[in-house]
């Protein structure tokens, strides 16, 4: 059913739906996230969590200075994060700018990584400030180049000025462009939405409009994937599943730099949305530096001591 039968495509119904959502108490949400941050994940659980986290990483490079060389190196690393240990899983995807997609796709296929999708950031990433035809063409280009996943940004200006329908229609349009085969992640840029109430509203708006994933941030704005923001988004996908029987994924991105942070994210998933979400098809972590820390911690568990950082590849 269109829009899951929860809204009918009119502005009034969208606004009514979003208005009906309960508020988020800031102090309470932050306290809950902080409490879950005290979970102590040790020994066998830690080992398992590290491999799970590796398989969920969207290994990312989104720099003006990106080159073919940088992207191919990233692609190799994505397929075999630790060349000395074949038991290390591949990452969830690699995430690049539009013009790097074909280079990434070709190199992944070349090095035996045809199972690793390429995610492209689209719709005038990171600001989202472009006309709709440009955003659509941006998306088409990425798909033509072989992107299996599209990470689009929402128009935060429209959201903050109350033009919710504009935001909704943009997502609906990009969803149409993506079709059913290409995975659509919708970036809310929670650092610009600021309040948890806005995060909850934007999460539901994106899900109703057809997102496969809701993603916290571009990585270009701080704060990014803070634990309370991710908590609110996980509550949203949990509640959306109750309403529609459909599971939407969550992707925190930005600021998750070490194993401890990554494991805290997994605990949030486990105790909020539930263990059903603990799979790369429903939870991803957008990161670059994180992967090497996960590899270092994995070596520590395997060998019993911390190796020199020179034992992990820089990219």
């Amino acid at each position, binding site marked *: 059913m269109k829009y899951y039968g929860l809204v009918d495509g009119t502005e009034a119904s969208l606004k009514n739906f979003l208005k009906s959502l*309960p*508020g*988020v*108490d800031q*102090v*309470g*949400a932050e*306290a*809950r996230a902080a409490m879950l941050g*005290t*979970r*102590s*994940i*040790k*020994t*066998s*659980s*830690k080992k*398992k*969590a590290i491999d*799970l986290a590796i398989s969920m990483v969207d290994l990312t490079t989104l720099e003006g200075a990106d080159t073919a060389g940088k992207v191919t190196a990233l692609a190799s690393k994505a397929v075999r994060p630790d060349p000395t240990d074949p038991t290390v899983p591949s990452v969830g995807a690699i995430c690049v700018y539009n013009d790097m997609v074909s280079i990434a796709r070709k190199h992944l296929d070349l090095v035996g990584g045809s199972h690793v999708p390429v995610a492209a950031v689209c719709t005038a990433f990171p600001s989202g400030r472009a006309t709709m035809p440009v955003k659509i063409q941006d998306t088409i280009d990425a798909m033509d180049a072989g992107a299996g996943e599209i990470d689009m940004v929402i128009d935060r200006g429209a959201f903050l000025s109350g033009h919710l329908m504009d935001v909704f229609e943009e997502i609906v349009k990009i969803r149409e462009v993506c079709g059913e085969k290409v995975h659509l992640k919708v970036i809310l840029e929670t650092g610009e939405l600021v309040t948890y109430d806005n995060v909850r509203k934007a999460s539901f708006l994106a899900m109703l409009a057809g997102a496969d994933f809701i993603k916290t941030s571009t990585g270009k704005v701080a704060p990014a994937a803070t634990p309370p923001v991710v908590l609110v988004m996980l*509550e949203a996908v949990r509640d959306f599943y109750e309403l529609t029987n459909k599971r939407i994924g969550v992707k925190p991105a930005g600021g998750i730099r070490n194993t401890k942070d990554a494991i805290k994210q*997994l*605990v949030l998933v*486990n*105790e909020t949305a539930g*263990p*059903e979400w*603990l*799979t790369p098809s429903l939870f991803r972590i957008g990161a670059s530096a994180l992967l090497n820390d996960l590899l270092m911690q994995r070596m520590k568990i395997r060998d019993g001591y911390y190796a020199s950082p020179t034992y992990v590849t820089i990219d």
Partner: protein
Amino acid sequence: MTTFDYAPALESRTIVTIDPQYGHFINGSFTKGSNHFASINPSDETVLSHVALGSAQDIDTAVDAARVAYESVWSKLSGKERGKYLYRIARILQERAREFAVLESLDNGKPIRESRDVDVPLAAAHFFYHAGWADKLDYAGMGNSPRPHGVAGQIIPWNFPILMLSWKIAPALAAGNTVVLKPAETTSLTALLFAQVCQQAELPAGVVNIVTGDGSTGAALVDHPGIDKIAFTGSTEVGKAIARAIAPTKKKATLELGGKAANIVFEDAPIDETVEGIVNGIFFNQGHVCCAGSRLLLQEDVADEVLSKLKVRVAKIRVGNPLDKNTDLGAINSSEQLLKIRELSKSGDDEGAERWSPPCTVPEKGFWFPPTIFTGITQAHRIAREEIFGPVLSVLTFRTPQEAIEKANNTPYGLSAGIWSEKGSRILWAAQQLKAGVIWANTFNKFDPASPFGGYKESGWGREGGRHGLTAYLKDAESNNE
């Protein structure tokens, strides 16, 4: 589906040294004590140590020591000097925080996460807070140079042993009193460790005296003619007995007694945080909290949604070894308390309420009770009226805000209440109507040394904490002239 089980993450207990036997702490040193009884770990029923049963003679010796210390040392020290000792104690509590937390969890059964993150830091905070008051008593609103009472007799419960000790001792010492404190029968060990802290801080002998024992020891303390002020936290029943005992005397008293707090959820509440607050309100410290939110009042139009989310959340509560850092709900403190919880829960079944607990396995040994929710409750049910002091929530509903207030106030208790609403005007209106000493809005079980705590009606007399609590340890201008 991936499962993410948390491997045991046990806090090491090697940091604590427990002697096989303890005497009392009187006049700066430990006595041998007599009639020792076992103090057990409620999570596995192993014996941790043996503590002495304080006799009337022990109380007499302790009160004499406190009197001498008061007359000769403590009352002669300036506030600034007293403050130095309190700061020193506060810092030592912080330095030895891990030790106190582990010992508290062993002796009481509470999860290490709570003893580590709540009990011990708050205990230190109470000493810091009151240390700051010691040289500022002229500004406590009781006239120039308010005087202490003299010797305070203090009796504390087993639910927050080291925290209740600090609530009692810190203001008493800051105001210039000396104390004789009796910890609860089942939880003496952190008080005895605190006695070591007093030695470490080189607190003058006799300023703090700790006499362990049972109800008879407490009664001897209350009845002792050398006591000027009683501070008691515990059951309403014992509180009433104390009030009767001291009625013909000049003894002052503060009584911190039972409660049956209403936690009121309005239709516009922030639902997810409300669910957390309900869990925190009744399952924090196994529900062994006098201000626990044990009566949940749900507005009817959100009752189903809140209850279903609450059950999902309660099913995630991790019950088990108190020393596991991931444990949320620990052991019931004693077999006696477990029996009481069982008896009251059975009355819920017998009176037709519907009992729900999530599937959870509890350890075979020790005293355990699963998180439990009773629905289908009315004001007439015993479990809606009597304090259970366990992880048992009674759920009632209401239709209008007025009805919520009437139900909330329809209890002989009045210690605390909770309000959940996103509407500020409703929160302020409800807070004005509720007859409870502490009212939390969109939170629950939050404590701070600067905030006075205490009850209406049968929940007690006086306040502890803040300036209000401090005044309970000072003579007002009128008494000064006596």
